[in-house]
């Protein structure tokens, strides 16, 4: 026997937030080597252990919105650098990098599309765009997508994937929390259904605003869902966190999630929910 023993197999923090190139991909949870095409066909879900790989906003749109019905909206809204924020990098440089890396224009994509023929307004976050962080543009686009739902009297869906507020916009980011919470209150006052889907990870100011405010809160299996990040909690209480803490399966037991839905069944389940409201 070796003189050291690995105490934990499959350390979850090691999950990559990107899809490696090549023909084969290793599942970060069960270690299974998966043929990439097979993974694609299975909605980027490990067929062996049901691990949900992180995917981009447009992947979700492809999975749940009927073909050729999606119309992207509010693409003209762009981030600026109102605080002239500079840490180890300038904020405009970070933005520039994110545009190049992701070919996206922000950490959220909004639009109108149909789910099995039913029109909805949708906002889907992109974790690979500066950690899916919420700045003024994310807040404003979500606000406008909610307004679209209100005007067209159609359900509103937000798919969250975010580390929280965008630090480079400081208090302006913080204000996106009450801004989005207030427009969701308005949806409720007008009987417009709002469905929140929480994916891996949904933390910080996004969880503490629109992500937790759904008429229905849905979560993908295994997603990290919480207010404070695990490391911050460990530093504060000086203890190791229990296994699966802040994971979907734990969060549903504490009462904050209505249901867990695997990506393969997402469209069907969403349709059932939308249909119930109509």
């Amino acid at each position: 026997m070796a003189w050291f023993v690995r105490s934990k197999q499959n350390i979850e923090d090691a999950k990559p937030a990107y899809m490696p190139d090549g023909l084969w991909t290793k599942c970060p949870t069960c270690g299974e080597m998966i043929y990439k095409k097979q993974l694609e066909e299975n909605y980027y879900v490990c067929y062996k252990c049901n691990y949900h790989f992180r995917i981009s906003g447009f992947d979700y749109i492809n999975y749940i919105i009927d073909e050729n019905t999606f119309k992207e909206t509010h693409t003209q809204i762009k981030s600026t650098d109102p605080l002239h924020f500079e840490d180890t990098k300038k904020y405009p440089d970070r933005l520039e990098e994110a545009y190049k890396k992701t070919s996206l224009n922000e950490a959220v994509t909004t639009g109108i599309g149909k789910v099995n023929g039913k029109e909805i307004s949708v906002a889907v976050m992109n974790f690979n765009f500066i950690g899916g962080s919420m700045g003024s543009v994310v807040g404003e686009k979500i606000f406008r997508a909610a307004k679209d739902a209100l005007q067209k009297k159609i359900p509103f869906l937000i798919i969250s994937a975010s580390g929280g507020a965008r630090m480079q916009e400081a208090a302006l980011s913080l204000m996106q929390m009450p801004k989005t919470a207030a427009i969701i209150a308005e949806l409720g006052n007008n009987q417009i259904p709002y469905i929140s889907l929480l994916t891996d990870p949904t933390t910080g100011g996004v969880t503490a605003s629109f992500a937790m405010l759904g008429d229905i809160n849905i979560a993908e299996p295994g997603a990290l869902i919480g207010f404070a990040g695990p490391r911050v909690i460990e530093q504060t209480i000086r203890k190791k966190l229990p296994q699966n803490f802040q994971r979907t399966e734990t969060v549903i037991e504490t009462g904050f999630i209505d249901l867990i839905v695997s990506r393969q069944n997402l469209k069907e389940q969403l349709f059932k929910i939308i249909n119930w409201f109509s």
Partner: protein
Amino acid sequence: MQIFDFEKPIIELEQKLEEIRSLTGTIDMSKEVKEFEGKILDLKHNIYNNLTRWQKVQIARHPDRPYSLDYFTNIFEDFTELHGDRKFADDKAIIGGFAKLENHSVMVVGQQKGRSTKDNLYRNFGMSNPDGYRKAARLFKLAEKFNKPIITFIDTPGAFPGIEAEERGQAEAIATNMMLMSDLKVPIIVVIIGEGASGGAIGIGVGDRILMFQFAWYSVISPESCSSILWRSWDFKEQAAEALKLSADDLIQFNIIDRIIPEPVGGAHKNQDEMFKILKPILIQELNELLKIKPDKLVKQRKEKFYKMGVWEE
């Protein structure tokens, strides 16, 4: 009293002044005394009007600064504390209750820090669990039911990041409060009296008028945590404070706050009574203005105010 490094030149001059004063029995030093007093005044003016953002953060955390409870008992009459969220617990870091401001019945809610170590442990350093936000929500609804205005006092280093806080839904509690506050049909005045850290602050921070103390700070993250995340070290808190533009002078430019409350020279901790005297008439005036507005219009204006927040181009 805790003295900051940047205040040392003032203390030195004040000590010299004392020395001169002690000589006045033997020789006439009145001219020198006057000269020194003038110098000290100039120096104070110079130092306190040119504080860096990090220095303001330090003042905002001064342990002798008045806390929510000090305002509840010194500005208002007949404060009656109301405990518990009627769900799970009575959080000690967010407190509230009935109070009278002139002839108005109001609901006051605020974050409460402790002064001694023992007191701070009791108050959890002003870091609320979800139960605190839910107690606040209960009190807000009670106020709305009887058509009484709400005044909240923000002073927190953040919502508590703990296991139980997560299990009981810290995020949901904060989110629900913001949604609730955006819809309440009574006037809400928010006063940021010390530290306004992130979700912990905004969880009781949605209102018609947002007032902020001259030396308070308000942002999405504390300078220390910002430093540790963006610089990957705790040593860049001064730079982080500058970058975050977390002072009242900064935030008023972005319409995040509506009004800056001046503090006594050197900060509220230098003269608590003066601080109470400054704040009280301002609260009365703000409240009287808000009471003139019809509830529906009030809610609409409040929402519009938050809808406009943010900076982008298109």
